[in-house]
């Protein structure tokens, strides 16, 4: 399969960004391959209400 991209003139004015985080990329330019992934674990079970028990320490 052949895939042709024609990039004509690109002229951008002002970019306002608050934040770029978590292995994301803000790119002004060309790239061949971009592979980004993220895993975010905040299940309801991760909310612990009760005595402040320590997280599982090493070796237990």
């Amino acid at each position: 399969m052949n895939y042709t991209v024609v990039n004509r003139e690109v002229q951008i004015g002002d970019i306002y960004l608050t934040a770029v985080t978590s292995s994301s990329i803000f790119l002004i330019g060309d790239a061949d391959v971009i592979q980004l992934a993220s895993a975010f674990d905040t299940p309801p079970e991760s909310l612990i209400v009760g005595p402040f028990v320590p997280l599982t320490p090493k070796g237990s």
Partner: protein
Amino acid sequence: MKRLSVVQLLNSKTFLLSSVLQIGDSREINARSNVLAVQRQYELFYGSEGEVTFPVFTKPIPTLDVPVSVQTYRLHESPVISVRSIYLIAASTASVVHIGSTSTVKGETRIKHIRQLAESTSPQASTRMTKDG
């Protein structure tokens, strides 16, 4: 052949936690970060915490392979990408702000978030542990 990136003004405040401002071309970017975020209602920290590995940090994340069967041709009619100005407050957690071209970008972030609140006065309130440790 890659295009030239022209930015007249970059105004950024903060780069933290292994984030990068790259001005100029690069070949390969590999950005990784693991975050264990524990929030407690009161200031409390037991020294030996967080040394155990949570599944979110070890589970393999499947990647989408680039199909080699697709032949891509890029024609740059204009050799310049022009930007007048960029206002950026912050870049964080192994992120990249890149002015210029690159070839391969790989990034992976894994975040485990745990919140601990003090027991409420209600007798119904019970202790709940995280399911995966």
